């Protein structure tokens, strides 16, 4: 008797665990997303936050019954931040796993390699974090869309901030420090271009190019101290920002010169890593802020992310969150995730309300460049302990209108001629 009971239980368990999932998946219509975020090494936190935020968006959408009768299925493969490996993964996603969308990535080098795959296989690639302007200008292809600001937009906002600053705090000299690779160089070139474009007069007194992930910035800090720029523009990202600021503090560098870091400096990662050691008065920005805009949507997004993960999000997370909602919007419009050409049309010009949109503005995808167009806010570090372990957050915001930040045609032509 007992034996029979056991047999029945085993059979039931077999049905529940083996047969049932197949029967469910056979009925469900799926939107497959193939993501390539780095989960290890220096950019690992960006990958981790992006995956958590994408999954959060998917849970939200799927719990409401999905979109157009489809539910999301999300897979991430650690890209190792390596372009060649990511190319293999992207091709596997397309030809083996039959994903509907390629999704990610953190490194611009990986983004440039994956957009090539997307072009060849005519598979839509949603860029969520990488910032290289090239992807939406001279390297643009029909199946690529980016849902976070690029470096040009950040630097255009930065140039406008510096222009306004002249009126309240006159400055003349400027210097730049950034990682010695394309991302660092692009920012400096784009800032100078935008300063000229907006008619800002300046004298560049120094350029400093430490290696990415450099452990020691002492030599550069001494040189900057000697050059005495009024404004020090920084183009670091991730742990490099933290390391530089920590090392610059004992030299008093940040009290003598204004530290200005408009692309990735305002990432929550810096505030959480430095706590009360973070100096007041640094001028920073990023592609998303946990305390700006003070809208219901942003508050809700940050709160949900914290509830899900136990930590506050970095800006990378919001890009992934926005990417999933943009896909949902496109599929809703087209009615299925298979008609790629119709989806491309749906993305072009798409309007989508995102956590980083202030009241009265809705993000949209520029149909020509496939680049999301968003307002950008630049803030100053001020005491704020509402997002522990951070003790300072950004405040005293200045907001720049999205349309002013897009690269003009002549700039795109210049890039294409290169």
């Amino acid at each position, binding site marked *: 008797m007992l034996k029979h009971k056991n047999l029945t239980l085993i059979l039931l368990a077999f049905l529940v665990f083996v047969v049932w999932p197949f029967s469910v998946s056979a009925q469900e219509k799926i939107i497959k997303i193939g993501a390539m975020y780095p989960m290890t090494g220096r950019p690992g936190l960006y990958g981790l936050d992006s995956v958590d935020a994408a999954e959060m968006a998917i849970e939200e959408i799927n719990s409401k019954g999905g979109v157009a009768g489809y539910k999301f299925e999300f897979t991430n*493969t*650690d890209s190792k931040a390596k372009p060649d490996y990511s190319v*293999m993964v992207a091709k596997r996603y397309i*030809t*083996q796993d039959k994903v509907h969308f390629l999704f990610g990535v953190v490194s611009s080098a990986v983004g440039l390699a994956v957009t090539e*795959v997307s072009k060849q296989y005519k598979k839509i690639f949603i860029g969520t974090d990488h910032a290289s302007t090239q992807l939406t200008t001279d*390297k643009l292809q029909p199946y690529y869309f980016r849902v976070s600001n690029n470096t040009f937009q950040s630097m255009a906002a930065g140039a406008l901030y510096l222009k306004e600053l002249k009126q309240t705090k006159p400055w003349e000299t400027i210097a730049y420090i950034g990682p010695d690779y*394309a991302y660092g*160089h692009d920012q400096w070139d784009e800032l100078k271009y935008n300063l000229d474009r907006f008619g800002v007069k300046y004298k560049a007194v120094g350029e400093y190019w430490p290696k990415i992930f450099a452990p020691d910035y002492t030599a550069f800090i001494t040189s900057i101290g000697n050059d005495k720029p009024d404004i020090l523009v920084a183009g670091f990202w991730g742990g490099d920002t933290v390391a530089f600021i920590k090392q610059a503090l004992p030299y008093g560098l940040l009290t003598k010169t204004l530290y200005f870091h408009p692309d990735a400096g305002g990432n929550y990662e810096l505030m959480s890593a430095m706590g009360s050691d973070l100096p007041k008065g640094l001028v920073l920005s990023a592609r998303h802020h946990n305390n700006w805009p003070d809208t219901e949507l942003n508050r809700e997004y940050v709160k949900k992310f914290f509830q899900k993960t136990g930590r506050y999000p970095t800006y990378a997370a919001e890009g992934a969150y926005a990417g999933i909602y943009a896909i949902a919007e496109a599929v809703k419009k087209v009615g299925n995730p298979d008609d790629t050409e119709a989806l491309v049309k749906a993305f072009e010009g798409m309007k989508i309300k995102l956590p980083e949109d202030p009241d009265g503005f809705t993000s949209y995808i520029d149909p020509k460049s496939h680049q999301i167009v968003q307002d950008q806010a630049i803030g100053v570090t001020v005491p704020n302990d509402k997002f522990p372990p951070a003790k300072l957050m950004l405040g005293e915001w200045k907001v720049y209108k999205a349309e002013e930040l897009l690269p003009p045609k002549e700039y795109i032509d210049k890039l294409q001629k290169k």
Partner: protein
Amino acid sequence: MKNHAKIKEVVFWALFFVIFGLIPLLEKSDYHLILANHILIWGMFAMAFNMLFGVTGMLSFGQALYYGLGAYSVGLMVKNFGDIWFLPAIGLGLLSATLVSILIGLLVIRVSGVYFTVLTLAFGQLVWQITFKWYHFTGGDDGIQSIIPPGILANHTVYYFFTLLLVAVSIWVLRRLVNSPMGLVLRCIRQNPDRVRFLGRRVRRNQLRIYVISSFFAALAGGLMAGVDNSIHPDMFYWTTSGEVILMAVIGGIGQFFGPFIGAALIIIIQDVVGARTEYWSLIIGLIMMVMVLILPKGLVGEVQLLRGRFRPDAKNRGENGTTFSA
């Protein structure tokens, strides 16, 4: 004995052509073609590297220099002059690698052991740094994209067979080289360079020759890879690429001619299978390396050979010496 070696040779080539020839017919997905292409190219690169390490006893930590040189010759030519230059660019890469390896080789072969390893590493890193920093010309860390082979080679299956043919010819050439009198001299150099000198053979000249030959095939691997991935990046010059090829050779067995090819296949498949399922892929690779070093120190193919040797009638006389190179 001779017959046995011939049978082994025939079996390898039969398996090689059956497995790699059938992949495009059996698999409809492009992905398996790409995976097979990676195995072929890395396999050839690892075998060429092993001509230096396993055969001659020269541990170069800078073969990525030539791999990158081959890839960047193709990338830069296609970017600046159009895809029609794809094939001439592969030739240019081979020529550049030959010239550069002669120049660098003349310097590095003057030292041996760890000094040779460090010098090769230094030259490799030097070129990586130049490629990384000179971003107006090389594209810096963004690399170069849109490297599409011209005409019929743009078709993935055709390009696969093109790679298969070149890799097969390369392996055949390397095999002939190992079995030639020069191959014998190289093996002797690994075991006792002083005795080779005493016998009247020129050690440095032979070391330079094999350094150039190995670099030539590394550049061919880089050039072919540019056409598979359609994009290149400075990591191809980086020391981790040299490290990866050493890992492949060690896992497959540096004492066996075909060992590095098997090692390359194993690493690529593990990376693919494990990487698709967990981000802890590096932990798995690390564990495999540990097992290999502790339990199978002669590499996969070396241990299989050893095992087979034990079951042969003349087992007592075979396979005990781990330092031999089995061609």
